[in-house]
Structures are given as structure tokens and as C-alpha cells.
């Protein structure tokens, strides 16, 4: 067993993307290796200029709930998602993009933020890494 965390990010919801990056960055900060697999709605968030565009998973109220949440987060000085992603990459976190999602949803490589993506892959790569991980999460 390696000292590794592997996360599947299936949700594209604003709050869940936050959860994924907070956990990912926390694990990296505590000395673990981290891999995140972005699939389905999660992968949508890796499109250019799309990272913080997801709705709240609950009480979104056509975006009003999210605005309120963003205001509360700003007051609490919570780091932006974009900065969390930059921290994640700086600390050596790996990002994998699911190639089947790309095919189903008609997402091309040039639509995605290629500079932060470590590899385009399928389920086998995830299983290989998850098998070596002490911690796996599905978000």
C-alpha cells in the first residue's frame, strides 16, 4: 500500500469541486501523493474558464443560493477554486481526464485545460492507482 489518495470527481457541482480540491490539497500537504480522476460532470469543470461555473448541489435557487454561498466564502476568506487548482498542481497533484466522457459529451482536447491535465485515460488507469492507494473517494 502506497501513501496515496485517489479521488474520482464525477460531480461538477460547485461545492463538490471545492470538497475535492480541499481534500486533495490537504492530502498533498500531509505528504501523500494524490490523483484525481475527472469524469462526467466533473470533467465539464476542466473546460476552459469553467472551474467555478457549477451550481450548488443543494439550495442553488437558480444561482441565487450559489451567489450567497460565494459571498459567505469571500467573507470567510476561503481561497478561490482557481487558486486551489494552482496549489494542487504546484504540490504535485495529478489530474486525469476520462476519455470516454470526452467522447460521449463531445469534448475535445482543445476544449480542456490541457496544461493541468497529467494524462487522458480510461478506467484501467484509475483501478491501477486506486489499488495502490490507502484512500479512495468518489465525489
Amino acid at each position, binding site marked *: 500500500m502506497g501513501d496515496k489518495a485517489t479521488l474520482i470527481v464525477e460531480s461538477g457541482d460547485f461545492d463538490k469541486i471545492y470538497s475535492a480540491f480541499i481534500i486533495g490539497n490537504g492530502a*498533498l*500537504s*500531509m*505528504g501523500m501523493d494524490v490523483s484525481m480522476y475527472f469524469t462526467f460532470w466533473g470533467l465539464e469543470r476542466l473546460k476552459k474558464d469553467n472551474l467555478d461555473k457549477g451550481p450548488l448541489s443543494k439550495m442553488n435557487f437558480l444561482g441565487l443560493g450559489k451567489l450567497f454561498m460565494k459571498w459567505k466564502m469571500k467573507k470567510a476568506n476561503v481561497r478561490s477554486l482557481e487558486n486551489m487548482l494552482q496549489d494542487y498542481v504546484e504540490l504535485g497533484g495529478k489530474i486525469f481526464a476520462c476519455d470516454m466522457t470526452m467522447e460521449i459529451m463531445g469534448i475535445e482536447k482543445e476544449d480542456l485545460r490541457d496544461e493541468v491535465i497529467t494524462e487522458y485515460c480510461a478506467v484501467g488507469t484509475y483501478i491501477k492507482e486506486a489499488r495502490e492507494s490507502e484512500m479512495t473517494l468518489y465525489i
Partner: protein
Amino acid sequence: MSEEIKVNCLGENCPVPLVETRKALRKAEKGDVLVVTGDHSASKKEIPMAVEAMDLELISVEEKDDYWEIRIRK
């Protein structure tokens, strides 16, 4: 010659103090001392956990008036 590196996390929230500590540790040389200051209370407990997990030396954890200061040797 080992250096003293300051990491100011005053006013920062979860997980920033932990992340900034890790970033600074990655850049530091062996023997350097990190002085992390902050006022996010959970981080005061969690930074020492990270130090232990990474097998580094926790020199001290001090509570000041309205902030804490943690010293770590890489």
C-alpha cells in the same frame, strides 16, 4: 547555512495554512527552519500532524495573544 523561512497565514482559512506550509517545505533545504504564523485554530493542530506524517522535526508550537506560531525543521 540553514535559513529561517517565514510563512504568514494570518487570516487564512482551511486548507491554506496547511498548503502554504507544505509549499514552503518543498522549497526549503534540509536544515532550514520554517516559522508559520496563523490564527486558523484547526491548523494549529493539523500542521503538527503533517509534520509528523512527513517525519520532520516539530520544534515548537506557541500560542501568542491572538495567533499561533509553529516552528518546523526540515
